[in-house]
C-alpha cells in the first residue's frame, strides 16, 4: 500500500508548484495593481482595419 506515499508526495509536489507560481506572480508585480487589469481586459481591439492616418499623428 505504498501507493499512498506516492499519492501524497504528488499532491505535495503539485501544491509546491502552485506555491512557486504564486511567488513568481507576486514578484512580477501582478499583485501591485489589482484594478487596472480588470478594466483593461474589457477594451476591445476596435481598430482592426488599418486606417492610413499616419500623417496627422504628430499634433
Amino acid at each position, binding site marked *: 500500500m505504498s501507493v*499512498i506515499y506516492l499519492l501524497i508526495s504528488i499532491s505535495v509536489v503539485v501544491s509546491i508548484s502552485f506555491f512557486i507560481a504564486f511567488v513568481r506572480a507576486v514578484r512580477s508585480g501582478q*499583485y501591485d*495593481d489589482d*484594478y487596472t487589469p480588470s478594466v*483593461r481586459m474589457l*477594451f476591445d481591439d476596435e481598430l482592426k482595419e488599418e*486606417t492610413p492616418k499616419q500623417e496627422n499623428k*504628430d499634433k
Partner: protein
Amino acid sequence: MDRNNCFHCGLEVAENDTILFDQKAFCCSGCKTVYEIFSANDLTTYYDFEKSPGATPLHTKGKYDFLAHEDIVSKLLEFHEKETAIISLNIPHIHCSSCIWILENLHKLLDGIVTSQVNFGRKTVRIIFNPEKTNVQEIVLLLCSVGYEPYISLEDYEAVKTGTDRSLIYKIGVAFFSFGNVMLLSFPDYFDVGEYWLDHYKGFFRWLIFLLALPSFFYAANGYYTSAYKSLRSKMYTIDIPIALGLIVMFIRSTIDMFFDYGQGFFDSLTALVFFMLLGKLFQQKTYNFLSFERDFKSYFPIAVTKIESDLTEFSVPVYEIEKGDRLLIRNQELLPVDGILISEATEIDYSFVTGEAVPIPKKSGDKLYAGGKQLGNSVVLEVLKPVSQSYLTQLWSNEVFQKKVDRKHKTITDTISHYFTPILLIIALAGFTFWIFRDVTTAFNVFTAVLIVACPCALALTAPFTLGNVLRIMGKKKFYLKNAVVIEQLAQVDTIVFDKTGTITSGQAAAIRFEGGLISAEHAVFIKNILQGSNHPLSRKLYDFLPATAHKKVTGFEELPGKGISGYIEGHNIRIGSAAYLGKPAEKGFLKTSVHCMIDGTYVGAYIFETRYREGLQALFTQLRNQQYTIKILSGDNEGERSLLKDLLPEHTELVFNQKPEQKLAFIAKLQEEGRNVMMIGDGLNDAGALAQSNVGISISENVNVFSPACDGILDAAQFSNIGRFLELSKKAIFTIKMSFTLSLLYNVVGLAFAVSGKLSPLVATIIMPLSTVTIVSFVTLLSNYYAKKAFRSKKKPTATDYEMAAV
C-alpha cells in the same frame, strides 16, 4: 436659460458660449481640440466607456521648457538606453475607464511611444518610448494637450524610487500553503477511528505535517517574534507578546508530542492561526496609493525655473542650481522657489501657502519677495537673494518646531488590553502548573502548555485589524482617506477640534460675488464681462465666470497694469476696472473685503465685492459637533475682517484666533495638548502643516485630493466637509465594536481556559474552539461595523456613480 453639457468634460455650458463641432457641444476650444485630436486618430472610443470623461487642457506654454534640460530629464527617467527609455508620470486626472483606455493608446497619438501602462490605484502611467524618435517634453506636452497634465514636482526629482514592499503577500502565500496542506494531512487524526491503514501511515502523515509547518512558523510568523522581542525590551506589553508566546509554546509542545509519539500536536491550529493573523494584517493595510500623506514643500516646488542671462536669453535651470544674483523669470501662477527682489515694475503675490492670508499682496519694484508665494499677473523678473536651501520657506520647514518628531507613541486599544492580559495569562498558566505538579507531573506540563495555547489571543489580535480595516475602507468610500488604521482610534479619542479658517471652513472656489453701488445696467455688465476676458488676474477670472454670458464685443486699447487694474475701449466707451486706488477712489478705512471697482466713461459705477463663502452645512456641522461635546476653535492666518460674521455663524463660546503665523498655530495646538486635550486639527495648505503635524490627528481638507495636501494623518475631500461629525461618530462606534468583540473573545478564552486548567483539553476541543472563535469574531466585527456605518450615514442621499467608482479603487 437652456444649458447643455460639454461633450468632452461634462461641464455645463451656456447656450451662447457653446462651440458646436461635429454635432457635439463643447464648452471651450480646448475641449474641442482634444476631441479633434481623438477623432482624427480614430480614438473616439474614449467617449464610449464613460460619458464626458475629459478634462479641459490648460495653457501650458513655456511651463515644461525645463524638460528640454538633459540633467532634469535623466533624473525623472526610470530607465534609459539607446533605443528604450521608461518614465512614470503621476497624472491626477485619472479617474475612470476612459482614462485608462486613452492613456494606454498613446502610441497611436505619438510616434516613438512604444507602450504605456496605467496603474489606476496609484494614478500613474508608465510610458516606454524610443528616445531617438521622441522625448519627455513632447510626451508631457501631448498629455497636456489631451487634458492629462502630469504632476511633476521637486519631490519627483529628488525621490529615490523605492520598490514596493511585498513581504506580507509572500508571507501570506507561505502561511496559506502550510495551512492548507497541514489541514488536509490532519484529517486522519480528526477522524481517529482506529482504521488499520490510517494508523499504519500515521507516522508519515505526522512527519509531513511537521515539515510543512516549519516555513509557516519560522518565516511567515517571524514578524511577531521580532515585534514581541522589541516590545519586551521597551517594557511595553503589546499583544504580540502573548501571540509569540502562544506560537512558540504550541510549536515546542507539538514537536515534543511528535518526537515522543504522544499525539499529532497542534500544527493545524498553529498554521491556521498564523494565516488568519496575517490576513488580518493585510486587511488593515489598506493604502491610498494615489495620495501622499507626507508632503513637504518639495512637492509644491517646481523642478526648474527660467533663468535670464545678461544677454537676455532665457533657459531653464534646475532649482538647486540657482545662485545668488541670478535673474529669474516667474510666470503667472508660478510658485517662487527662492527669496528675491522684484526687478519688474509691479505684481501681486499670493502668500496663502505660507501665511494663510488669501488676499494677494501688491508688490512694487525693489520689494523683497519670499519663497512660497504664488505670482499672479504677467511674467516678472526677480533677482535671487538666497538660493533654495536658504530661503525663508525652506528654513521655516527645517525649523525645529516643524522638525520636532512629536513623541506620541499612540497606545492602541489592543495594546492597552494586552497590558493586563499578558500578566494574567502567565499567572493562570503558572497557577495551573503548580496546582497539578503535586498530583501529576505530565498533566501539569499539559495544563501549562494548554493554557498558553488556548489563550493565545488570536481572536483578540484579529478584532482590531478587521474592524479598523473595514472602517478604513468605509471611510475611504466616503472620500475620507486615512493614513493608517491607528488614526481611527485616535479620532475616537479627540475632544477638541481646531479648524483653520481660509480654505478649510471657507470654500476655496466660488466666492460669492455681490455688486455694491445700486443696480448695474445690462449694457455695463456686457462691457465689464468683455473687458475681463483679456485679463488673467484671478479676480478677473472669478468675476468673468460669475457674470452671465453675453454677446462678444471687440475690445480695443486693452491695457493691464499689474497690481492695479485693466482698462480698454468697447464701442467708444472707456472702461476701467481695478483697485480703489487705481480709480482714484480713496480706500475706505477698515475695509477689509476683496473688491473690484468699475468705472465707465469716467464715472464710478460701483464695485463687485468678493465675499468669502463658507462651506455648505457649516452651521449644522458645528451644532452637531457641539452636541457631541466637542470643544471647537477657529485658528486663522487671516485678519479679523470676518470676526463678527463668524461669531453669528458659530455656536457660542467658540474661540476665534486671528493673525496666526504657522509657528503660532503649532504653538497653539501644543498648548492645548499640554492642557491634556486630544486635539484634531483640520486645515489645508502649507501654513497649517506644522499644526497638523503637532496635533493628535491632523486632517487636511482638499478640493482636489490628488494634488494638494501637506503632511497629515488623513485627507478629506472638501465635498464631505459637512460629514466630519459622522466620521467622528463612526470612529467611536468602531472602538465600541472592538470592545464588544473583546468581551466575546474573552468569553471564549474563559471557556477554553476552563477546559485547559482542568486538564481536559483534547486536540479535538482545541480544534473546535480555535477556528470557531476566529470565524465568529471576524464576522461579528464586520457585520457590526457595517451596520454602524449604515446608521451614521443613513440620512445621506443615495451614492452617486462616482462613489461606486471610488469604491472600486
